[in-house]
């Protein structure tokens, strides 16, 4: 399976993602933001980082970048697209995913392990994961998901909520909401479930020495879903 990781000049989780994809069997290639097109891929990943510095609004410039047109075309033709952290922010900027990501509720950057509950397994990203709750890792300043009431109704009706913040037992209530995200939303799908954006980093939880392996379950499922 071929994957492509897009590198924006301020991406900083590109290598981590490359390591993770290769570890679980993807033939991964890195694609520079100024390239005209993306090589033939089964999966495109927008990694975490600060794409173009994010001084304006996270992901806003990346959402208008040269390479992004190819990403949009690929996604619209049903290709699998994954955006992690800044990648999620970029996907909302392009309109490929609904909603926006605001600054965290307590206005601080948060770096810590969190639990997320898988809300929908009828898609390639989560279908064969045996667990209901995964321990992943967040590291962001703007991960506070928000959308209008109409949008919320629409994403709920379409089962587009992918993962929600919760505790070890899966309680996705306010007490277990690290950043103020609406309905504890940590990740959402596109309508067709071929695009996933989420704030937690599965690529940081891929071996026991990095204090967690639930990220491995995510990638194992992903490579297995093709």
């Amino acid at each position, binding site marked *: 399976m071929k994957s492509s990781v897009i590198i924006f000049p301020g991406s*900083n989780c590109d290598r981590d993602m490359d390591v993770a994809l290769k570890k679980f069997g993807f033939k991964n290639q890195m694609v520079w933001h100024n390239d005209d097109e993306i090589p033939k891929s089964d999966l495109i990943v927008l990694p975490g980082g600060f794409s173009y510095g994010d001084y304006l609004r996270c992901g806003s410039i990346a959402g208008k970048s040269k390479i992004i047109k190819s990403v949009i075309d690929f996604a619209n033709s049903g290709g699998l697209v994954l955006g992690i952290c800044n990648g999620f922010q970029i996907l909302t900027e392009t309109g490929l995913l609904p909603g926006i990501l605001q600054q965290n509720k307590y206005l601080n950057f948060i*770096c810590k392990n969190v639990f997320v509950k898988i809300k929908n397994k009828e898609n390639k990203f989560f279908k064969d994961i045996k667990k209901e709750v995964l321990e992943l890792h967040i590291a962001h300043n703007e991960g506070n998901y928000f959308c209008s009431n109409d949008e919320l109704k629409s994403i709920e009706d379409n089962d587009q909520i992918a993962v929600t913040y919760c505790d070890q037992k899966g309680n996705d209530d306010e007490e277990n909401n690290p950043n103020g995200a609406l309905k504890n939303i940590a990740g959402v799908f596109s309508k067709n479930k071929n695009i996933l954006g989420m704030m937690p980093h599965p690529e940081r939880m891929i071996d026991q020495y990095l204090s967690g392996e639930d990220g491995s379950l995510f990638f194992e499922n992903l490579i297995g879903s093709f």
Partner: protein
Amino acid sequence: MIEVNEKIAIEHGLKKDEYKKICDLLKRTPNITELGVFSAMWNEHCSYKSSKRHLKKLHTKGKQVIQGPGENAGVVDIDDNDAIVFKIESHNHPSFIEPYQGAATGVGGIMRDVFTMGARPIANLNSIHFGSPDHEKTRNLLRGVVKGIGGYGNCIGVPTIAGQTCFDESYNGNILVNAMTLGLVNKNKIFYSKAAGVNKPVIYVGSKTGRDGIHGASMASAIFDDKIEEKKPTVQVGDPFTEKLLLEACLELMAGKSIISIQDMGAAGLTSSSIEMASKGDLGIEIDLTKVPCREENMTPYEIMLSESQERMLIVLEEGKEKEAKKIFDKWNLDFAVIGKTTDSRNIELFFKNEKVAEIPIDFLAENAPMYDRKWIKSELPKKNSFSKDQFKSLKLGECLNKILQDPNISDKEWIWSQYDHTVMGDTIQRPGGDAGVVRVHGTNKAVAAAVDSSATYCNAHPLTGGKQVVCESWRNMISVGAKPIAITNCLNFGNPEKEKNMGEFVECVEGISEASKYLNYPVVSGNVSFYNETKDKGIKPTPSIGGIGLLANYKKMITMELKNNGNYLFVIGKTEGHLDQSVFARNILSKFEGPPPEVNLFNEKQNGLITLKLINNNLIETCHDVSLGGILTALSKMSIKGNKGINIFPINGLVNKFQYFFGEDQGRYIIEIKQENLENVEKILKNDSIHFDKLGLIEGNEISYGNDLKISIDDIKQGYKKWLSEYMVN
């Protein structure tokens, strides 16, 4: 053009006789640009004029040392052609004036020092000191500094893996922000700042030059007064995104063979970087300031030379490689300009709009810079307090413990480090909150441990002992995670060197550092000095920060401090004599502030450390934590809280009372956790080497208990330990 005279020279921070020396050397009056250059090179921050003669006494050698002090950063060998480039640097003065930008650019500056040498930064650390929590400025300064450190490091994508935070009223008017970076480099591909060859193109890359930070280095060499707010414009403004571009572009260029020398523009900007490269290469340098990319209009030669705009580098290239190099910087959207060339004149010659605007022999600026042998006084070792039984009579162990765990200098600092990305790059195997941060050397079995320590209270009580102690503490932190200590970097934060007491503190701390690092083969390979941490005649406590690094040949042998399993035993290695003077207990519970710091016995320190490392390497122990501030009971509590397990502490025997035993801050001690099956073996090894140890207790239940004297649940102590800082920050 401004006429230069003595008054103007003094406004530039020069002393009367220094100005006279300039005129004598030049045999004429300098023009304003030249005066600016002299003032930038001759201030304390750049010239080390008060400290140089003492820094020579530091122990800087060892088999592991590839590059000692004197370069952008130190370099040590970690086998297999890998080397670690690392350094710590202060950004104290700017951080007090503008905490966010001051701290952010401190992080940016130290990272540039490291990648200038060809290394990719793999970890950041910091040591930050603030005034009393009750002081009106402390909360905002802390918030700003933490945001600044995070804002810069998080954006670049280098994990912040460890740090240290202290509160003490001596920092009310002068906070300390010391930033440290480690980078990984192939030991055959290290880049140095020494230029070589005549007529080689001098290249400017990175951000454009603006008016920010002019005279930053002079500001960092001055004491503060009431008008400190007016100095805000001398604080640089950071742009981490540009630094990320600069990092990637430089590493890309370094992969080729076109660079002769490279130097980041840090303190005193273009002035110090150009002069340093030429001086080290015994060359001259010619710069056309008209070609320097400027952000603002009508900048004068004076302003261009003294700007401390961030994210800029100066490179001496091989001839004919300009095009190839420019292509890389174009790709990363960075400025690239050929601004001059190396010459054989041994002068710095500056041109602006086709006119020569300055010409100074490089020697005058570097070798002939003033050197002072400042007067200093020796500190006497204070007399020991004798504590009477009555003083302990009404005290309860549990109450004392709770109070100590909520002491600002002991309590949990998660509020701080959770704002730093500590896991990016995917190799952080020990996160902040332990004895040291540990990152793997990417793609290998090796890992590097790093920690920063300072002990201003001990240094203040007796600088010589304090200097030794802080090196030992750093060494213990390496051992405690299973790393072999390799080398240190020191950031020497002191008051006004023109005062004999402050100068004495500096001299004796350096002596202590030197003695301990020599004995432990833990050499100093880089560092910086920050003097004049003084406001309105009140200086800080002497605060040398020691950044240590250690190597784990096999990262799977790394060890952590949280208790692992019920039924395992706890030992304390090292002798407990119950030294309470200068301890947290003495200050916080007994309100005793006098007395000597705990004695440092280097022989025991080394023996105890090496044996602990041996136990770890032989897989004989499950957990290790060194005993430091707050003594044994504080250490045990932290281990309990992190591992969520209780301890049944065995009765102590010996001559000291329980408060002295549990809260004394004797040095050279480690608490270790041992499985039943390994007990015999561990005891044998310790006895064979005549290492003193006490059997401390058994892991069980969810309480810490000591006979009838102490019974306290983990949840209770956890609450106090965890809440102090977060509650302080929201109030």
